């Protein structure tokens, strides 16, 4: 289910709290490495925040069933719609 209350604000992966999930929306293709896309970071796929390192960076995520960590500088570039 999509929470429409949040859908109007542009959330990115970096606004997820621990345990929260979202659906990946748009991102600029030339800023996100192909490698990350190949690991499942594509529009429409689900992302969940598993853990945050101190200073909230890097972020430990589960994207489309893959567990991986990315830096905050990348996470802020990927829009999501939060799932409640």
């Amino acid at each position: 289910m999509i929470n429409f209350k949040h859908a109007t604000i542009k959330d990115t992966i970096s606004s997820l709290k621990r345990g929260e999930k979202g659906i990946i929306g748009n991102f600029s293709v030339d800023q996100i490495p192909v490698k990350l896309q190949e690991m499942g970071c594509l529009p429409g796929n689900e992302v969940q925040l598993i853990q945050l390192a101190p200073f909230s960076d890097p972020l430990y995520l589960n994207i489309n069933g893959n567990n991986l960590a990315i830096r905050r500088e990348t996470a802020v570039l990927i829009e999501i719609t939060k799932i409640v």
Partner: protein
Amino acid sequence: MSKPLNVALIGNPNTGKTSIFNLLTGLSQKVGNYPGITVEKKEGSCKLPNGTKAHIIDLPGTYSLNASSADEQLVVENLLSRNKKDYPDVAVVVADVENLKRNLILFTQIKDLQIPAILVVNMADQMERRGITLDVAMLEKKIQSKVVLVSSRKRTGIGELKSLLEDYQNLPVSATIHLADIDPDYFDRLQQAYPTQNLYSLWLVVSQDVPLEKIDEDLRKANTYSARATPEIKRLQQKETIARYLFINRFLKDVYQADASKATDWRSLLDRVLTHRVAGYIVFFLVMLLVFQAIYNWSSVPMDFIDESFTRLSEWTNNHLPEGPFTSLLAEGIIPGIGGIVIFVPQIAFLFLFISLLEESGYMSRIVFLMDRVMRRFGLSGKSVVPLISGTACAIPAVMAARNIENWKERLITILVTPFTTCSARLPVYLIIIALVIPDRTIAGFNLQGLTLMGLYALGFGMAVFSAFILDKILKNKARTFFVIEMPAYKLPLPKNVLYTVIEKTKSFIFGAGKIILAISIVLWFLASNGYSDDFYQAEEIVRAQTENAQLDEQEMTTAIASYQLRHSYIGIIGHNIEPVIRPLGYDWKIGIALVTSFAAREVFVATLATIYSVGSDEEETIKVRMSTDTNSRTGEKLFNFPTGISLLLFYAFALQCMSTLAVVKKETNSWKWPLIQLVLMTGFAYLVSMIAYQLLK
């Protein structure tokens, strides 16, 4: 006999590709470097059931054919070189049963190159426990290839894989996706530009972030087809990736089911502790403490044994072989030289035992996750932590440990700054000088000598971090790299893999860096045991004449002669000649000799001074007494006074006084450029700092 079959092992990192390689080849494997770059080349061979020999090439772990590191670039280049001898007849793509979907992306890429490919699904023994079911027959139909379930833990499936390799010619080479469907305009134009080439191969060449050089000549021409990394190319790459996922998703649900509730309990529990912002660091600290203990304390037992054995062997050779230059070369040059290589084996073995355990268990990724933010400030990576900490034991294994860092710039910086950390060879030098010049007093409950030692450790670490910060600003990055690390499942390490890693790293040190160490030891031996003057050749007569009235016993006489000889050997002459250079630092020619000889290893400093002061044994107390009473012939003051002592401590803290480090950096960076830069900068900096300190304190 027919020509051997070339088999390339390809797969994502953490899929157990290495285990499969080990199972296929056993100990018949060779590890080398690809020419010109520092990517490990692993190859081996195995016999197939019908007697054919298979040449197995273990390509570096890669997530995709869109290269983002030197390792990955090598994989792509290998697969685009039909005319080279390592071009695979058949590819074995290793996938891990838990991440099948992502692993299949790479598989479809390999297939689209029209290379016969077999899919190995590894860790098949985990399927039941993780609630996974897989319809192999259906999967084979969908991907138009053969699938083998393998368990490297239980060693099943390898026989089946070998039989399939025999039959590789029957594997279909059909493509999985059709690029022309993604964007007909673009791809038709690309194909028309190079009509004889495979379209996907062309696209790979055109779409890489960096040009591919080591590929077939016809394909290489496509490097200039268009500008790199344009938004258009990136957009097409995304479309291609989506097309691959669509291809996979179309059948995956029918052939592969996973019960998510079974899979995650263990993992999330461990992650909750190991990546926790407090508990995670405590565990990390304890693990590092253990590693440090092992390389610092546990390895001292075998190291002492090695040291003693080589000393004995050297004595035995001296006593039992006829006297002459050859015996001297053997007993004082070659044997100690080899001993100086073997002495590092326990530390290297212990460090790589732990690193391999950390990697295999999946914990290493968690360390990187925890440390990345802190290390990034200094141009390092989360992965630089292990080399920097193990550098406190010895820089040799530490520099080798930097191999795990994929990003070349971060790896180079780690290699360059690691020798600043206080290694165990500096300790004997520090201890004796601190004992001489720092008063044994207590200030505010702390022993002044202990504080100085701690300060030196802090200084080394601080300098490493500071120079990393500077290098980060200066060095240019070869390729734009992003930080994406996989957080793999926790696994029990396979003893065989751990053992092979330890053997392989130890071997690569002995045969790589070892050669250089041996060569320099022989040069140093030659300089110390030869001279040109009468003083050197008639040392015995001269000393006997001088000490006629002193009534020395045989032991004292031998050491007095050795001392006189060393002073007049080439090394002694070098020591005398560099005195003007090191005078501003507060050193005399005796320290000069010790500086030169301790290039073999820092701790030799103490042994050299022992010889110069003609102390028979390197009994620390006696040397200390001699050193403390010696005077500087020019100033008439005590030689080892406070300013000289501090100057020496600083010099040893910063200078690259270690030929083994140079040798290992040469090996790891594959050029003399970096070790020489390191030598000049570190030693130059040490000179400057020591001079300033001496001049201010004097």
